[in-house]
């Protein structure tokens, strides 16, 4: 009954995805994608002080996972299911038979939603693993060096990954790119809106994962690493190991953005994963909002994404107010906002606050007059009970 009532109300409304609603869906989609990247960056730089200037690497790994690995698995499953696919085994045929093969796989996904969603989950799983592996490999040469060298390595690898994609045609079709089957082909309506919902859901899940980690003792360890790694090393913590783990974890999450972008545009080409877009824009979001807190990251992402999409979509209307081509406006805003924020609000629009640990009073704990709200701090309770037992 309630379903019928809800459908009745909804059917009386105009069709959603028209005109300005298309812009809203587009902004929501790119907000979802970039907020995942910006949150991962906040996790690395804002909380652990690791300046990851290679977010584009992890995003491109996600996209390449779809085009280089999952696409082949899709073809194999479709061929095993009896679809008459053209040969895709050598790199030349992989590109030139790609459109017709993808069309056939789309037909399969249109009739089998479970299979299609299974491939989406498989893509996400493989991308997270590949992203983490990339993080590990990136950490090997540079993690022991100072932050500046790590930044240089990561910037270089971001460009190198595009060069690999351009020259090894089996990964993403070289300069031509490859089409990706539509995993939402079973959905009868607008594909953009369903992809945006899934991306925002993934963004929400990522947010809760990062939030849980940052509120845990590991989060406090990360902050101490950012503040003074020498002190941390002096108390016996493995600084290199912690940095490597953080880089691996955040790289895995960032790769999700690459997967969802590939499924949104249904096409992967290395030229879509430029450093400026997938590294510098997330950095601007982080610096604008304020590093070290999720609220700042969200605010920065919302402002930058909305600004960017509005410029792109209303470029003809905006053009009359400027004497230079409006396509330069994006870059001017990127540079200009960064300079303005660094001059007037160096800690961002929402500055980082002190860490609040509910129920724990360190000053009194030292004097052993502790009154802790144990429900709010279960971990502290365990430690405290252990200490008491040791004393007995």
């Amino acid at each position, binding site marked *: 009954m309630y*379903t019928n009532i*809800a*459908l009745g109300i*909804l*059917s009386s*409304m105009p*069709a*959603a*995805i028209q005109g300005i*609603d298309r812009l*809203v*869906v587009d902004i*929501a989609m790119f*907000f979802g994608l970039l907020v995942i990247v910006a949150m991962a960056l906040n996790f690395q730089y804002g909380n652990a002080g690791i300046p990851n200037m290679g977010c584009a690497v992890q995003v491109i790994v996600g996209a390449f996972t779809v085009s280089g690995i999952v696409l082949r698995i899709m073809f194999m499953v479709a061929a095993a299911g009896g679809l008459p696919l053209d040969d895709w085994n050598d790199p030349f045929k992989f590109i030139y038979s790609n459109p017709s093969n993808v069309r056939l796989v789309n037909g399969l996904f249109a009739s089998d*939603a*479970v299979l299609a*969603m*299974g491939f989406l989950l498989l893509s996400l799983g493989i991308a997270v693993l590949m992203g983490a592996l990339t993080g590990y490999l990136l950490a090997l040469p540079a993690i022991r060096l100072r932050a500046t060298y790590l930044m240089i390595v990561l910037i270089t690898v971001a460009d190198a990954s595009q060069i690999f994609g351009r020259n090894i045609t089996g990964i993403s079709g070289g300069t031509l790119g490859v089409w990706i089957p539509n995993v939402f082909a*079973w*959905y*009868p*309506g*607008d594909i953009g*809106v*369903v992809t*945006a*919902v899934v991306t*925002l*859901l993934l*963004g*929400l899940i990522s*947010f809760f994962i990062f939030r849980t980690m940052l509120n845990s003792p590991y989060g*406090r360890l990360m902050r101490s690493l950012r503040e003074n790694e020498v002190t941390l090393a002096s108390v016996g913590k493995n600084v290199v190991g912690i940095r490597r783990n953080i880089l691996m974890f955040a790289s895995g999450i960032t790769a999700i953005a690459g997967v969802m972008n590939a499924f949104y545009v249904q096409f992967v080409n290395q030229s879509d994963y430029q450093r400026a877009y997938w590294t510098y824009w997330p950095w601007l979001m982080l610096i604008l909002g304020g590093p070290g*807190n*999720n*609220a700042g990251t*969200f*605010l920065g992402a*919302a402002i930058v994404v909305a600004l960017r999409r509005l410029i792109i979509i209303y470029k003809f209307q905006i053009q009359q107010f400027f004497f230079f081509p409006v396509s330069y406006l994006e870059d001017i805003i990127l540079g200009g906002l960064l300079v303005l924020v660094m001059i007037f609000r160096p800690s961002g629009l*929402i500055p980082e*606050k*002190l*860490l*609040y*640990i*509910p*129920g*724990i*009073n*360190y*000053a*009194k704990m030292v004097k052993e007059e502790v009154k802790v709200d144990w429900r709010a701090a279960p971990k502290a309770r365990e430690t405290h009970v252990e200490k008491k037992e040791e004393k007995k």
Partner: protein
Amino acid sequence: MNGLILLASILRIIGQTTADQYDNILFYLMIALWIIMPVFIVYEEITERRALREADKSEEGTA
């Protein structure tokens, strides 16, 4: 897997409706998700800042 089958079944049951209505449902779900995230974060931020202010007075709870 069961969840996906359930989702597919629900979509099939509502299958008499047109695609526009699916779009409407998802569009408003998208807006809700888009609103829920920042509202939750802002709420949490305000709560923590308030707790910090109180903790400052009693010199407890900060690190």
